[in-house]
């Protein structure tokens, strides 16, 4: 599904109007969504476009963050680096570190490359708490945003616009990059790096350049987070941060330009929205990721474009029942899974276990504003029914899809696997 210029403009306008539409709390979430979106796009430049899977991208995000916090303390929002220009520091730090790390890492490919990137991030994670000067030890470094250019930067709104400006700038750079010689060669690197050498190119150098660019943009994202949060500590190098960007990007779909951004925004939004309701959000995200890997290689945006293609080829009427079945299946299966996970979480929690030890029989658990008896069969019939019905719907949807695409495409879902944008 191509994003046309009018659509893009509309998107930008909508984003610009957001502060007027959202309350302050949600606006903060929106800033985090923007940052996550940029990080995901930076990540998928390397893993999607260049085909090099990195599991330690938090390193460049974190390096950008720490460099920025030092710059904030050093320049106080004035001089060479007023507050709005701070992400430049993140960019430079990310770029520099990216070149060094990339030079090592790109000497290997595939799984070994992935492990090297993970090791680099873990190295930083291990060493940062020890270095008080650079990383503030275990507690990290905090600072304050200073006024610049006539703006106070005290309000969330101004921070939002700053973040939006930099994210849009970075996305434009990424988009432009795809049309430059270096950008096209990066794609070729993914397709057949072996041949590039025989065509006279320096494949290693290309790999390093893609790595460095990805690291630079990650540095900008990290920088924006520090500007927004006014603090950073070594936790920014945690494996969970690297994992999150991987999950976000692939759930969104690395085959399209905006796929990772949308995936990241959606996942970040959900983690905000459900963080009060459940402790198991990460588990759900992991399950979604594995599902995507098994069944939907193109991610959610891939799903949208496949559906669009199906409608185009077979007509709306033929696709509608299929879509409804699939949607129904997704909802039912999710509901059943959530029920089981939430129930298990409560039953195995420390509080409940102490309660259960003291009581004569298993006490009820509270879930979805209702009390359930763990020992009663009726309790477990609910998820069983949800899952069974959902599975039936899914089976039926699959059969319909097969019938629809017989003779036209080998596997509609697989055909949505990354194509070049």
């Amino acid at each position, binding site marked *: 599904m191509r994003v046309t210029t009018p659509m893009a403009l509309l998107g930008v306008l909508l984003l610009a109007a957001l502060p007027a539409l959202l309350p302050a709390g949600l606006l903060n979430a929106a800033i985090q969504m923007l940052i996550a979106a940029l990080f995901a796009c930076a990540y998928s430049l390397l893993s999607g476009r260049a085909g090099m899977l990195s599991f330690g991208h938090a390193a460049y995000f974190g390096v950008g963050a720490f460099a920025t916090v030092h710059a904030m303390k050093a320049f106080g929002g004035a001089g060479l680096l007023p507050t709005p220009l701070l992400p430049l520091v993140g960019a430079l730090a990310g770029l520099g570190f990216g070149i060094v790390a990339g030079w*090592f890492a790109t*000497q290997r490919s595939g799984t070994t490359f992935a*492990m090297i990137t993970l*090791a680099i991030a873990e*190295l930083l994670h291990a060493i940062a708490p*020890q270095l008080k000067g650079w990383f503030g030890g275990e507690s990290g470094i905090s600072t304050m945003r200073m006024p610049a250019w006539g703006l106070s930067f005290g309000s969330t709104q101004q921070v939002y616009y700053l973040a939006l400006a930099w994210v849009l700038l970075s996305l434009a750079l990424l988009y432009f990059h795809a049309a430059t010689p270096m950008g096209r060669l990066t794609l070729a690197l993914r397709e057949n790096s072996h041949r590039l050498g025989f065509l006279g190119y320096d494949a290693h150098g290309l790999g390093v350049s893609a790595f460095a660019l990805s690291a630079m943009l990650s540095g900008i994202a990290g920088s924006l987070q520090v500007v927004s949060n006014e603090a950073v500590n070594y936790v920014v190098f945690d494996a969970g941060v690297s994992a999150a960007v991987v*999950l976000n990007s692939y759930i969104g779909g690395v085959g399209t330009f905006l796929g990772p951004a949308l995936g990241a925004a959606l996942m970040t939004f959900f983690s905000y929205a459900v963080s009060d309701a459940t402790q198991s959000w990460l588990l759900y995200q*992991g399950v979604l990721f594995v599902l995507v*890997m098994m069944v939907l290689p193109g991610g959610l945006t891939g799903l949208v474009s496949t559906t669009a293609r199906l409608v185009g080829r077979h007509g709306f009427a033929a696709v509608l029942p299929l879509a409804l079945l699939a949607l129904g299946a997704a909802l039912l299966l999710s509901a059943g899974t959530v029920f089981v996970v939430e129930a298990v979480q409560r039953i*195995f929690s420390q509080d409940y276990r102490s309660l259960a030890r003291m009581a004569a029989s298993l006490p009820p658990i509270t879930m979805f504003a209702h009390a359930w008896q763990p020992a009663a069969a009726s309790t477990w019939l609910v998820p069983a029914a949800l899952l069974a019905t959902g599975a039936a719907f899914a089976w039926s949807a699959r059969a319909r899809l097969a019938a629809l695409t017989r003779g036209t495409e080998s596997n509609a879902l697989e055909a949505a696997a990354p194509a070049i944008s």
Partner: protein
Amino acid sequence: MDAVVFAVLNGVIYGLLLFMVSAGLTLIFGMMGVLNFAHASFYMLGAYFAYALQGLVGFAGAVVLSTLLVGGVGVVVERGFLRRVHRHGHAHELLLTFGLSFIVAELVKLFFGNYPVDYRVPKALDFAAFAVGTQQYPVYRVLMGGIALLMFAAIYLLLTRTRIGIVVRAAIYRPRMVEALGHHVQLVFMGVFGIGAALAGLAGAVAGAFYTTNPNMALEIGVMVFVVVVVGGLGSLAGAMLASLLIGILTSLAVGVDASIADLAALVGAREWAQGIGGLLTLKLSSLAATIPFALMLLVLLLRPSGLMGERT
């Protein structure tokens, strides 16, 4: 001197432990070309299963049962997940195993809580084996090392002296040919994967009692194991042993060293200068011990990219 001997012994034991986990991984990689990111999760599951079963069947029973269970999980992972995405390529497999490792960690947190659990060496085994100078050396550590060595011997003999071993080794290099010769290669893959997982599970069950058992175990040892595999050379069992021991001993020795680069600079009278710069130069080696394997890995990558004993490039 005693401290050094102690440290070396500890390092050897830890190295053997690393080997137990990385042996399975390097075999699986050699055979299927995919570094299973979830391999360290088998280690973690081994520890947690043993912890959960300890109350029911006693320590020894828990270790054995846990190993078998984890082997079963390995088979399920191979059959149900990996085989389905095999045709999408290595990157896809890697991502899938990454996702699986993520889920396993979250499931462990769901069932057992996001903190270490009280999985401990049973009283029966909690005594000293011998004395090193004034320090007592616990028998459990020796046991761990013993199990690892037994395992190495068993794998080595299995691979080199039995028919199944020959088939497995052949399948590493020429799976299609082995299949054409009438061997059930799929079954071989499943078996090797399951055994590799079981070994990691055994390591976890045994080590988890001595070191901590927490949801972060997989990540901690996982990164180490991959460093071992890179340093030792992908697909080389002997390389994995060598690298494991090297890393184990180096790390263990470093933990005992309280000197820093500034202390070294004192030899040329530059201590104050180094201390003035601070940062890395004043960090004690003991604090940096955890980072030594990474440094080793980067060094190997620079000087000998295929690993110390690697065959494939």
